[in-house]
């Protein structure tokens, strides 16, 4: 082992402690002087965070009080020109004894809450419900390594009507504002264009309701890496034609 490697081991140890917020002030200051520009340490911290997220999953499940959600949303909603302000800390009469009781009650309430939550979703406006589900999908993709969210924009600009979520070759589409098609005589088609070839159809699909829809569009013909663009067209007939008509949404893949 060279002296240089030994030197860096010291930083790597500090990186693990830094990720865990366990450094003494002097060590932290030294490490923060080293971190900018060090790819190895940045990577180590990101990896440590994934491990820590695993550790977090061993924490006992408890349902936060509904008032917490309300307080966060309220604090994030600027009113009358006031900047968002953190929730006022309340009297601190709660100590560990009460926490223990709360934890037990919360655990029991959890089952009830989860059941009720599903019903509450169904009672909500349908469009809103689907929009939430779609937002969840896009977010889940954004946070997954190896999943890419590709916006397909309308030719005339404005709102993005389709977002393609691609994981490996699996592709699903989140359509927001594509008009429902005539499922007896027309179809939407997802197209993939690679450098060398003509655009090829990936899947035909229907949009059966207004608002937001999530569509499982199967597998890309070619890997995403070789793709120039993805597009959605609205075609007459139920089968994809040999070549697309004018796309209703198109996104280039960089």
């Amino acid at each position: 082992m060279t002296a240089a490697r030994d030197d860096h081991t010291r930083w790597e140890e500090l990186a693990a402690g830094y990720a865990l917020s366990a450094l003494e002030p002097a060590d932290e200051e030294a490490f923060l002087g080293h971190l900018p520009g060090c790819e190895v340490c940045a990577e180590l911290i990101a990896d440590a965070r994934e491990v820590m997220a695993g550790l977090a999953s061993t924490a006992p499940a408890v349902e936060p009080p509904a008032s917490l959600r309300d307080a966060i949303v309220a604090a994030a909603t600027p009113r009358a020109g006031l900047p968002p302000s953190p929730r006022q800390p309340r009297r601190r009469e709660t100590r560990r004894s009460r926490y223990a009781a709360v934890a037990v009650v919360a655990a029991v309430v959890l089952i009830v809450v989860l059941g009720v939550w599903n019903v509450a979703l169904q009672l909500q406006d349908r469009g809103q419900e689907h929009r939430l589900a779609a937002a969840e999908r896009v977010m889940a993709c954004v946070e997954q390594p190896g999943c890419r969210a590709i916006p397909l924009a309308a030719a005339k600009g404005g709102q993005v009507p389709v977002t393609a979520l691609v994981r490996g070759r699996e592709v699903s589409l989140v359509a927001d504002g594509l008009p429902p098609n005539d499922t007896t005589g027309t179809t939407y088609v997802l197209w993939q264009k690679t450098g060398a070839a003509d655009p090829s159809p990936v899947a035909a699909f229907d949009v059966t309701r207004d608002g937001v829809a999530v569509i499982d569009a199967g597998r890309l013909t070619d890997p995403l890496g070789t793709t120039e663009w993805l597009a959605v067209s609205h075609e007459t007939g139920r089968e994809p034609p040999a070549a697309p008509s004018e796309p209703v949404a198109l996104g280039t893949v960089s």
Partner: protein
Amino acid sequence: MVTAGDEHALEVLYDRYGRAAYALALRIVRDDELAQEVVQEVFLALWRDPARFDAQRGSFSSWLLAMTHHKAVDAVRREESQRRRSIDVAALEREAGQQAELDEQVWEGLRGERVRTALAALPAPQREALLLAYFGGYTQREIAALTDTPLGTVKTRMLAGMRRLRELLQATQDRLPGGPPGRGEVL
């Protein structure tokens, strides 16, 4: 995904990650009021400055939980110095090894189980250092004192434990099955 001022995005984020953040904060600070303050601080910080998350580096959930951990540890150091003296290593290990009493969500349940198994496979001194830091909120120097170990050894154990745990978790990573091609289907 989140843009500053988009309260709807904040709500979606909270609905997705609020429970995990709260459970973690509560586990560290052991006080429901304080845990709520921590979670609120985390989500408002995110809402004010979503660009703090770097999508190139790691998943959003791990980043959010790391921020929750950091703020919870800060809070515990600020608030309750006497509480921290009362927690012993054995209790931390016992708690981390406990089965969740209720299966809140199948995935979280499975994941927790996987992590517990990996933790159990870790050499005891490494496990101890990680748990004291992560759930106990102790600094490396405090861990050295608590476990009667030289500070340098604690630092080495922490890094080694982190690497080993990562390997163990990766070895059991779930794999997603692929789907057959065919006509697109509205889900």
